[in-house]
C-alpha cells in the first residue's frame, strides 16, 4: 500500500529529495500526496504534476502503486 513519489529539476534541488515512497490511503488526491511528502510545504504557483507519467491536476485522485511526480515548468527544446 504505497505510492512512489518523484521530484525533478529545481524542485528536486529545493526539496533535496529525488524520490521516496509514501503510504497510500483510500481516496487520496495528488495535492494530499504533496502535503504528506513535503510536510505541508506551500504549493509552488507553477507546479506541474503527473500520475503514472501522464499530466494531471492537483485534484486528481491516485490509486495504490501509482507513481506521482512533481516538477517545475518545462524548458526543453
Amino acid at each position, binding site marked *: 500500500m504505497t505510492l512512489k513519489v*518523484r521530484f*525533478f*529539476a*529545481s524542485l528536486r*534541488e529545493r526539496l533535496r529529495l529525488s524520490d521516496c515512497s509514501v503510504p497510500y490511503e483510500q481516496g487520496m488526491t495528488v495535492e494530499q500526496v504533496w502535503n504528506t511528502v513535503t510536510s505541508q510545504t506551500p504549493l509552488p504557483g507553477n507546479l506541474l504534476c*503527473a500520475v503514472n*507519467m*501522464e*499530466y494531471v491536476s492537483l485534484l486528481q485522485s491516485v490509486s495504490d502503486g501509482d507513481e506521482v*511526480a512533481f*516538477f*517545475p*515548468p*518545462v*524548458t*526543453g*527544446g
Partner: protein
Amino acid sequence: MHIEIRGEAFEPYQELQNYQQRIAEGQYGATAVFVGTMRDMNEGDDVQGMSLEHYPGMTENYLLAISRQAAQQWSLLDSLIIHRVGDLLPNDPIVLVAVWSAHRKDAFDASRYLMEELKSSAPFWKKEFLAEGSRWVEHNTPGQ
C-alpha cells in the same frame, strides 16, 4: 515515426541523411526540419554550459504521443524527434524535429506543432552554467 532521447552530442543533418533512407523514395515532396541549438547567451548573460534533465519514461511517452497526434492531424509520411539530455556546450544541437509529407502545408504545420508541444509540455529542464554559478531556466521564449 521515431523519437529518441540522446545522451551524447549528435549531428542533426547526418541523422537526417541516415533516417531518410528508410522513407519510400519518390513519395515525399516536402520535408520541414527544426534544429534547436545551444546559444552562448541567455537573458543577457554569457552561458558556458548547460545540463539537460528529463523524466525517463514520461518524456518518451510524451514525444510519441505528440508524434501520433501530428500523424492524425496532418497527412505525414514520417516524423523524427531527437532530443539531447546530459551536459551540453554552446553550439551543441539540443533538438531535431523533422517531418516528411507529400505537400509542404502538412510538413510546415506539423513541424511547428511538434516544436510548440515539445517546448510547452515535454518534461525537460535546462540548468545553465554561468561564470558566477548555475541557474535553472524558468521559462521558454514564446514561439508563436
